[in-house]
Protein backbone atom coordinates (compact mmCIF):
# COMPACT_ATOMS: atom_id res chain seq x y z
CA UNK A 1 0.00 0.00 0.00
CA UNK A 2 1.05 3.57 -0.45
CA UNK A 3 2.18 5.95 2.27
CA UNK A 4 -0.93 7.15 4.00
CA UNK A 5 -3.82 4.82 3.36
CA UNK A 6 -7.02 5.51 5.21
CA UNK A 7 -9.81 3.14 5.93
CA UNK A 8 -12.62 3.02 5.55
CA UNK A 9 -12.80 4.89 2.26
CA UNK A 10 -16.32 5.95 3.13
CA UNK A 11 -18.21 6.02 6.39
CA UNK A 12 -21.84 6.87 6.99
CA UNK A 13 -23.14 7.34 10.52
CA UNK A 14 -25.98 8.96 12.40
CA UNK A 15 -25.60 12.24 14.21
CA UNK A 16 -24.47 11.66 17.75
CA UNK A 17 -22.51 8.51 16.95
CA UNK A 18 -18.74 8.30 17.05
CA UNK A 19 -16.70 8.08 13.86
CA UNK A 20 -13.37 6.29 13.71
CA UNK A 21 -11.00 6.54 10.79
CA UNK A 22 -7.71 4.72 10.45
CA UNK A 23 -4.54 5.55 8.63
CA UNK A 24 -1.51 3.41 7.86
CA UNK A 25 1.84 4.58 6.57
CA UNK A 26 5.06 2.93 5.48
CA UNK A 27 8.10 5.05 6.26
CA UNK A 28 9.41 6.58 9.48
CA UNK A 29 7.74 9.83 10.36
CA UNK A 30 8.45 13.00 12.28
CA UNK A 31 4.78 13.62 12.87
CA UNK A 32 1.36 12.73 11.54
CA UNK A 33 -1.43 15.21 10.93
CA UNK A 34 -5.10 14.99 10.16
CA UNK A 35 -6.80 17.38 7.79
CA UNK A 36 -10.38 17.92 6.86
CA UNK A 37 -11.70 18.94 3.47
CA UNK A 38 -15.23 20.00 2.79
CA UNK A 39 -16.37 19.30 -0.74
CA UNK A 40 -14.58 21.57 -3.19
CA UNK A 41 -12.87 23.53 -0.44
CA UNK A 42 -9.39 23.82 1.00
CA UNK A 43 -7.73 21.64 3.60
CA UNK A 44 -8.14 22.52 7.23
CA UNK A 45 -5.63 21.32 9.79
CA UNK A 46 -7.26 19.42 12.64
CA UNK A 47 -4.57 17.95 14.82
CA UNK A 48 -0.91 16.98 14.82
CA UNK A 49 0.67 14.13 16.75
CA UNK A 50 4.42 13.74 17.00
CA UNK A 51 6.23 10.45 16.66
CA UNK A 52 6.99 10.35 20.39
CA UNK A 53 3.35 10.84 21.34
CA UNK A 54 0.76 8.09 21.61
CA UNK A 55 -2.47 9.97 22.05
CA UNK A 56 -3.72 13.50 21.67
CA UNK A 57 -7.04 15.22 22.21
CA UNK A 58 -8.56 18.36 20.77
CA UNK A 59 -12.20 19.06 21.56
CA UNK A 60 -14.22 16.17 20.12
CA UNK A 61 -11.17 14.76 18.35
CA UNK A 62 -8.94 12.03 19.65
CA UNK A 63 -5.93 10.85 17.72
CA UNK A 64 -3.75 7.86 18.49
CA UNK A 65 -0.44 6.91 16.98
CA UNK A 66 1.20 3.51 17.03
CA UNK A 67 4.64 3.84 15.46
CA UNK A 68 5.34 0.13 15.85
CA UNK A 69 2.37 -0.64 13.63
CA UNK A 70 2.80 2.51 11.56
CA UNK A 71 -0.80 3.41 12.07
CA UNK A 72 -2.98 6.19 13.45
CA UNK A 73 -6.64 6.60 14.19
CA UNK A 74 -8.88 9.63 14.34
CA UNK A 75 -11.95 9.46 16.53
CA UNK A 76 -14.67 12.09 16.27
CA UNK A 77 -17.04 11.80 19.19
CA UNK A 78 -20.69 12.85 19.20
CA UNK A 79 -20.63 13.58 15.49
CA UNK A 80 -22.67 16.35 13.92
CA UNK A 81 -24.01 16.83 10.42
CA UNK A 82 -21.44 19.61 10.03
CA UNK A 83 -18.66 17.02 10.41
CA UNK A 84 -19.57 15.67 6.98
CA UNK A 85 -16.36 16.02 4.98
CA UNK A 86 -13.33 14.10 3.75
CA UNK A 87 -10.63 13.42 6.30
CA UNK A 88 -7.01 12.89 5.34
CA UNK A 89 -4.02 11.80 7.28
CA UNK A 90 -0.71 13.27 6.23
CA UNK A 91 2.79 12.41 7.34
CA UNK A 92 6.00 14.33 7.54
CA UNK A 93 9.26 12.46 7.28
CA UNK A 94 12.75 13.51 8.16
CA UNK A 95 13.69 15.62 5.16
CA UNK A 96 15.35 18.96 5.14
CA UNK A 97 12.92 20.60 2.79
CA UNK A 98 10.40 22.04 5.12
CA UNK A 99 7.11 20.45 5.95
CA UNK A 100 6.52 18.22 2.94
CA UNK A 101 3.30 16.41 3.65
CA UNK A 102 2.46 13.05 2.15
CA UNK A 103 -1.29 12.66 2.12
CA UNK A 104 -3.37 9.56 2.34
CA UNK A 105 -6.30 8.63 0.19
CA UNK A 106 -8.89 10.00 2.60
CA UNK A 107 -12.07 8.85 4.30
CA UNK A 108 -15.34 10.39 3.20
CA UNK A 109 -17.49 10.82 6.27
CA UNK A 110 -21.19 11.43 6.01
CA UNK A 111 -23.11 12.25 9.15
CA UNK A 112 -26.84 11.96 8.72
CA UNK A 113 -29.50 13.64 10.80
Amino acid at each position, binding site marked *: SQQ*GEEDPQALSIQEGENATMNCSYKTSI*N*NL*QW*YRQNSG*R*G*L*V*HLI*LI*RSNEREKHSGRLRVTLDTSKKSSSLLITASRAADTASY*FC*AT*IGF*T*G*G*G*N*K*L*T*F*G*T*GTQLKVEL
Partner: protein
Amino acid sequence: EPEVTQTPSHQVTQMGQEVILRCVPISNHLYFYWYRQILGQKVEFLVSFYNNEISEKSEIFDDQFSVERPDGSNFTLKIRSTKLEDSAMYFCASSVGVVSGELFFGEGSRLTVL
Protein backbone atom coordinates in the same frame (compact mmCIF):
# COMPACT_ATOMS: atom_id res chain seq x y z
CA GLU B 1 -7.67 35.08 11.75
CA PRO B 2 -4.84 35.16 9.20
CA GLU B 3 -5.43 33.04 6.15
CA VAL B 4 -3.83 32.01 2.89
CA THR B 5 -5.61 33.51 -0.08
CA GLN B 6 -5.51 32.23 -3.63
CA THR B 7 -6.56 33.69 -6.96
CA PRO B 8 -8.20 32.89 -9.24
CA SER B 9 -10.65 30.48 -7.69
CA HIS B 10 -11.26 28.95 -11.08
CA GLN B 11 -9.40 29.31 -14.34
CA VAL B 12 -10.25 27.75 -17.67
CA THR B 13 -7.53 27.68 -20.29
CA GLN B 14 -6.78 26.14 -23.64
CA MET B 15 -4.20 23.41 -23.95
CA GLY B 16 -0.79 24.88 -24.62
CA GLN B 17 -1.45 28.15 -22.85
CA GLU B 18 0.45 29.42 -19.83
CA VAL B 19 -1.28 30.04 -16.52
CA ILE B 20 -0.19 31.77 -13.36
CA LEU B 21 -1.80 30.92 -10.08
CA ARG B 22 -1.35 33.40 -7.30
CA CYS B 23 -1.18 33.03 -3.56
CA VAL B 24 -0.75 35.36 -0.62
CA PRO B 25 0.67 33.32 2.28
CA ILE B 26 0.25 34.27 5.92
CA SER B 27 2.52 37.21 6.53
CA ASN B 28 4.87 35.86 9.19
CA HIS B 29 5.26 32.45 7.60
CA LEU B 30 8.58 31.43 6.11
CA TYR B 31 7.80 28.29 4.12
CA PHE B 32 5.52 28.20 1.12
CA TYR B 33 4.14 25.26 -0.80
CA TRP B 34 2.10 24.19 -3.75
CA TYR B 35 0.08 21.00 -3.74
CA ARG B 36 -2.37 19.72 -6.28
CA GLN B 37 -5.35 17.42 -6.21
CA ILE B 38 -6.61 15.83 -9.37
CA LEU B 39 -10.33 15.14 -9.07
CA GLY B 40 -10.93 12.05 -6.97
CA GLN B 41 -7.25 11.53 -6.20
CA LYS B 42 -4.81 12.21 -3.39
CA VAL B 43 -3.43 15.60 -2.57
CA GLU B 44 0.09 15.61 -4.02
CA PHE B 45 3.09 17.69 -3.04
CA LEU B 46 4.56 19.79 -5.83
CA VAL B 47 7.14 22.12 -4.33
CA SER B 48 8.32 23.86 -1.19
CA PHE B 49 9.97 27.25 -1.15
CA TYR B 50 12.08 28.89 1.53
CA ASN B 51 14.41 31.84 1.61
CA ASN B 52 13.62 32.69 -2.01
CA GLU B 53 14.52 29.34 -3.42
CA ILE B 54 13.04 25.92 -3.96
CA SER B 55 13.86 23.70 -0.99
CA GLU B 56 12.25 20.54 -2.31
CA LYS B 57 10.25 19.47 -5.32
CA SER B 58 8.47 16.34 -6.44
CA GLU B 59 8.79 14.39 -9.66
CA ILE B 60 5.65 16.12 -10.87
CA PHE B 61 7.35 19.51 -10.66
CA ASP B 62 9.27 19.36 -13.91
CA ASP B 63 10.43 22.11 -16.27
CA GLN B 64 6.83 22.92 -17.10
CA PHE B 65 6.39 24.39 -13.64
CA SER B 66 8.04 27.29 -11.88
CA VAL B 67 7.48 29.24 -8.70
CA GLU B 68 8.33 32.76 -7.78
CA ARG B 69 7.99 35.18 -4.94
CA PRO B 70 7.98 38.40 -6.94
CA ASP B 71 7.48 40.68 -3.95
CA GLY B 72 7.12 40.45 -0.20
CA SER B 73 3.62 39.04 -0.23
CA ASN B 74 2.81 37.04 -3.35
CA PHE B 75 3.84 33.49 -4.19
CA THR B 76 3.06 32.29 -7.70
CA LEU B 77 2.94 29.02 -9.57
CA LYS B 78 3.44 29.23 -13.32
CA ILE B 79 2.46 26.36 -15.55
CA ARG B 80 3.77 26.61 -19.08
CA SER B 81 2.23 24.92 -22.09
CA THR B 82 -0.66 23.41 -20.14
CA LYS B 83 -1.84 19.88 -20.85
CA LEU B 84 -5.18 18.23 -20.27
CA GLU B 85 -3.74 16.29 -17.36
CA ASP B 86 -2.81 19.52 -15.58
CA SER B 87 -6.49 19.98 -14.80
CA ALA B 88 -6.68 19.87 -11.02
CA MET B 89 -7.20 21.88 -7.88
CA TYR B 90 -4.00 23.63 -6.92
CA PHE B 91 -3.52 24.46 -3.27
CA CYS B 92 -1.08 26.95 -1.87
CA ALA B 93 0.03 26.53 1.73
CA SER B 94 2.37 28.21 4.15
CA SER B 95 3.94 27.39 7.48
CA VAL B 96 5.88 29.22 10.14
CA GLY B 97 8.74 26.79 9.93
CA VAL B 98 9.63 23.18 10.32
CA VAL B 99 9.11 22.80 14.03
CA SER B 100 5.34 23.06 14.27
CA GLY B 101 4.58 21.04 11.18
CA GLU B 102 1.18 22.60 10.68
CA LEU B 103 0.45 23.87 7.20
CA PHE B 104 -2.19 26.46 6.46
CA PHE B 105 -3.91 25.91 3.15
CA GLY B 106 -5.73 28.26 0.87
CA GLU B 107 -9.09 27.44 -0.67
CA GLY B 108 -7.47 26.36 -3.90
CA SER B 109 -7.49 27.36 -7.54
CA ARG B 110 -9.32 25.04 -9.85
CA LEU B 111 -7.58 24.78 -13.21
CA THR B 112 -9.49 23.35 -16.15
CA VAL B 113 -7.51 22.73 -19.33
CA LEU B 114 -9.60 22.24 -22.45
